């Protein structure tokens, strides 16, 4: 496009430190707040990230102000905008909270002390968390201004961002709409934002051609070149928080904003208006649509923006699931098999739907959750037969703790408790089975479909898999061949 193209990389890197600085700032604080009385701070913290998601520019004045700022200064505008709107939101929250505290003090005079103190603590926690966020966000403004001030003429990436940022601005308020260049009737506001979205993607398409190779192994099927999207990196605490939406009045937490809105109705009639109940992002004043991608806060992870083959995550939910699955303890243990453990509760629930049901295994090592699927497979392939007594070995082995050691060293190992060694399954013939059982083990353990339980296959850190996949395949075929050749294979018929 133009020589500036080269600079887009630099530009991106410049913008990243802003965010990391912001995050660093934030992460330093939790220790400070680990006061016993505020023990639920971490769960109650209103994540700064939320501001990014549902930026509401309710005051035209501020919006205009921001716009003018953008025009004067050519630094990363969206981050700034986000931070500012976040600040604004937080200040409002703070205000409400203080109002609430004042209101409470009047109300609770007659109540038992315990209840009052509890309420008080909750409010305090909220208050502190908001203040912390305010400080951290405000602090992040400073370095971003510094770093972008000496920036070179806008890069392509910035063009994209600017386009995205500036174009829909007329839609922000009625007054500006009139200034619209086409001068015709005011189009529907949602349409406008659509147009802006299209615009951005078009730009992206243009750039895509240049960078296809670099992003080849992006598994989400999209090849966004660096810089054409905004990278957001939520904090660890935010990811792990059970709730992301909090009632500004009573502090109750919710997983979904919709639930919060439903909850809010109980706080007064003003929350029952259709406007209050409507989805926030459909509001006309929504932030200009810029493609957002997410980064994992875990440094060294491929999903972390500092990784040289960085692959962004699409949604905040992806980040959460990714982070929990990959970088957290698997604290949910399946109560049925007592072997499989999960860090995302939804994964556990998915697993529990299938756990305890027979795992249908073919002699080729392929597993099926349904018997008819296995039989369809066997009908299709000459010479394949179902493997025997998976259920027996499963039932008899129970807790197979001997595998547990693998978990730390090998991610793949940690999720392969489906087929415990057969050797232990048959008491009567244990001596004979022992040897064979071990050799056949890998076929059961490393059957490819085992990974299916983890819906987000793509969100696993690739490296441990990539390295070991070939060896799995070797083990698979190896053990199968072995059982074919060897007469003794039927001593351990449970697999071959």
């Amino acid at each position, binding site marked *: 496009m133009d020589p500036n193209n080269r600079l887009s990389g630099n530009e991106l890197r410049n913008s990243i430190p802003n965010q990391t600085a912001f995050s660093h700032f934030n992460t330093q604080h939790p220790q400070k707040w680990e006061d016993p009385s505020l023990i639920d701070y971490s769960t109650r913290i209103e994540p700064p990230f939320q501001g990014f998601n549902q930026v509401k520019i309710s005051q035209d004045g501020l919006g205009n102000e921001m716009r003018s700022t953008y025009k004067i200064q050519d630094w990363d505008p969206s981050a700034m905008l986000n931070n500012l709107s976040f600040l604004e939101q937080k200040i409002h929250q703070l205000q409400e909270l203080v109002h609430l505290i004042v209101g409470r003090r009047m109300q609770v005079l007659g109540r038992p002390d315990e209840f009052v103190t509890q309420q008080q603590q909750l409010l305090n926690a909220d208050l502190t968390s908001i203040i912390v966020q305010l400080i951290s966000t405000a602090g992040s403004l400073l370095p971003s201004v510094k770093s972008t001030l000496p920036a070179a003429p806008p890069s392509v990436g910035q063009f994209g961002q600017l386009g995205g940022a500036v174009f829909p601005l007329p839609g922000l308020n009625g007054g500006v709409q009139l200034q619209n260049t086409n001068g015709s009737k005011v189009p529907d506001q949602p349409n406008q934002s659509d147009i802006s979205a299209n615009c951005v993607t078009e730009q992206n398409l243009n750039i895509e051609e240049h960078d296809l190779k670099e992003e080849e192994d992006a598994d989400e099927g999209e090849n966004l070149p660096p810089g054409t999207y905004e990278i957001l990196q939520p904090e660890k605490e935010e990811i792990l928080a059970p709730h992301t939406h909090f009632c500004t009045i009573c502090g109750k937490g919710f997983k979904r904003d919709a639930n919060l809105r439903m909850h809010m109705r109980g706080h007064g009639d003003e929350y029952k208006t259709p406007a209050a109940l409507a989805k926030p992002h459909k509001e006309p004043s929504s932030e200009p649509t810029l493609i957002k991608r997410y980064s994992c806060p875990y440094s060294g992870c491929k999903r972390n923006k500092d990784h040289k083959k960085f692959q962004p995550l699409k949604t905040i939910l992806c980040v959460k699931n990714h982070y929990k699955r990959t970088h957290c303890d698997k604290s949910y243990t399946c109560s049925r098999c007592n072997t499989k453990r999960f860090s995302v509760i939804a994964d556990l629930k998915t697993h529990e739907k299938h756990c305890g049901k027979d795992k249908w295994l073919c002699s080729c090592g392929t597993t099926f959750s349904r*018997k*008819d699927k296995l*039989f369809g497979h*066997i*009908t299709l392939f000459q*010479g*394949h*037969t*179902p*493997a*025997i*007594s998976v259920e027996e070995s499963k039932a008899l082995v129970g807790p197979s703790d001997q595998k547990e050691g693998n978990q730390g060293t090998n991610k793949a190992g940690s999720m392969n408790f489906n087929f415990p060694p057969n050797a232990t399954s048959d008491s*009567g*013939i244990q001596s*004979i089975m022992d040897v064979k059982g071990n050799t056949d083990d890998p076929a059961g353990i490393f059957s490819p479909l085992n990974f299916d339980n983890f819906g987000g296959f793509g969100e696993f850190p690739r490296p441990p898999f990539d390295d070991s996949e070939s060896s799995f395949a070797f083990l698979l075929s190896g053990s199968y061949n072995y059982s074919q050749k060897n*007469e003794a294979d*039927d*001593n351990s*018929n*449970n697999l071959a």
Partner: protein
Amino acid sequence: MSSRSSKDLLSFTEDLLTRVYEKLGSESDRKSWRLVCREFLRVDSLTRNHLRVLRVEFLQSLPGKYPRLQSLDLSVCPCIDDGTFSLLLNRHASGSESGSLSWFSWARGLKRLTLSRAAGLGFMGLEALVHACPSLESVDVSYCCGFGDREAAALSNAARLRVLKMDKCLNVSDVGLAKIVVRCGKLERLSLKWCMEISDLGVDLLCKKCLDLKFLDISYLKVTNESLRTIATLQKLEVLAMVGCPLVDDVGLQFLENGCPLLQGIDVSRCECVSSSGLISVIKGHGSLRELNASYILSELCTTFLHCIKGLKHLEMIRIDGSRIAEPSFSVISNYCKSLVEIGLCKCVGVTNMGIMQLASGCITLRVLNLTCCGSITDAAISAIAESCRNLVCLKLESCNMITEKSLYQLGSFCSVLEEIDLTDCCGVNDKGLEYMSNCSGLKCLKLGICTNVSDKGLFSIGSNCPKIHELDLYCCSGIGDEGLGALSMGCKNLMKLNLSYCNEITDRGMEYISCLEELSDLEMRGLEKVTGTGLAAIAAGCKRLADLDLKHCVKVNDSGFWALACYAKNLRQINLSYCPISDMALCLVMGNLTRLQDAKLVHLSNVSVDGFELALRACSFRIKKVKLFAPLRFLLSSEILENLHARGCKIRWD
């Protein structure tokens, strides 16, 4: 035999001797042959291709002696287990290393293996056996109730398998079946009766992999119409047995209308949901059907069904037990099904003299006729049958109370080839009738249960004229005495199965007559109150082949009889000692000494103490398969012995 002729016989070449040997019909003749001399014994062992091992202790040495062994029957050695085979195969394997070819000669050539009821066999033994016998074509593992998928997998290594019988292998599931059908693609005959774990999926796979299947038995399986849909794709299927498939209905049978082009026989009896319309569709599609069993599914023979039957020109067997049948139906059957050989009308409502006479007039080729519980039949009908159906071989007339000696006269006069007749509970049968009946000199099976008018005189006739009889049922024939048995023992030397229960007049003398019957293997003598230990001792000493003995309520039999039993009845497999005055010591002896004993009923033994039971069970615990005990003993016997019995796969029935 003069010395000269015996010399000539001995100078025959082995080839000629073999030819002579092959002419021998019965097992007893072959036994005599073996006893002639060493040369004859050698010919026997060189020629012999079938071996039925009666005592497991000889199994180790026997097979190696017969190099041309093709068929090995171990069905009466249910106590075989993995160890038996590992010993057998290792022994012969090591023998082959030292130059002998015995291992190869019997195991390599073995084609048929009967392991029925060998519940003690595990998959490892089976596995080793199948590997040792690479040319195995036919295996019978029926009633090995514990068999499951592992055993099926072991069997599946016999890739040449063409015939497989797995009746009542209760734990074999679709997975096990899949193993077999994938690896044994040449299967032609397969019986899955009572393999309750097998479902549509397994049957579906079977029909896709074993395209040569000619005979299939899926009786009592919980399969649905889907199975029949795939079964219909089997191009070579000739016989389909699906007794008591409760989930199959007419829709399933409709699949068969256009499938299985070679279908000749179908058994849909006791399929609750099948009606005549389903049968009609099967019949429409297969005009060359030979066998049709529709017992207990048709409430009534409707006209459309009869109309379809008309088309079955080749129909040989039809069973419509339990249906209501109108008189005109018989004329349809007799007019159109000219080649009928067997008709089953057991418990049919509406079977009249007129109907049977119409039937008899047309179906002159009839050989088997079952009229059980057709109470309105009289002599007229039987006379008509006897006059028309001269080839009648088997006639069942149980509970046909209006039959008199006239019928038997007709049968004796005209049905010279009659072999089996069931006259149970026909109170019209008397000595005169039996005299007429004895004209059927080929009679093999005669059932006279509850024919109270029969006395010794009748048995004289039978004994003197029916030498081939091998089964005789005299249950509750209270008119029978010792003399009748004397006549029987003189004339019916081939008697194998005899029921004398509640023939109260019989004494020890009668038992002594019975002891002359060397072929006798089953003897039921319940409630013979005049028989003492002497009588039992005579039986035990005389009837060497005795395998099944029922002594329930023989209250006079004392320990001397049981001691003799323990000493002589080495082939005894089943015994019922309930209500016998047997003592501790005698019980221990019986249970410990009889090495083939598998099944014992030991309830209400008033003279046996708990310790006696304990000892007796200990003595037989390693081979007994089934035992019936007085329920309170459950808490009196040591848990050790009970566990031991369970571990050996013995079923205990508490009474």
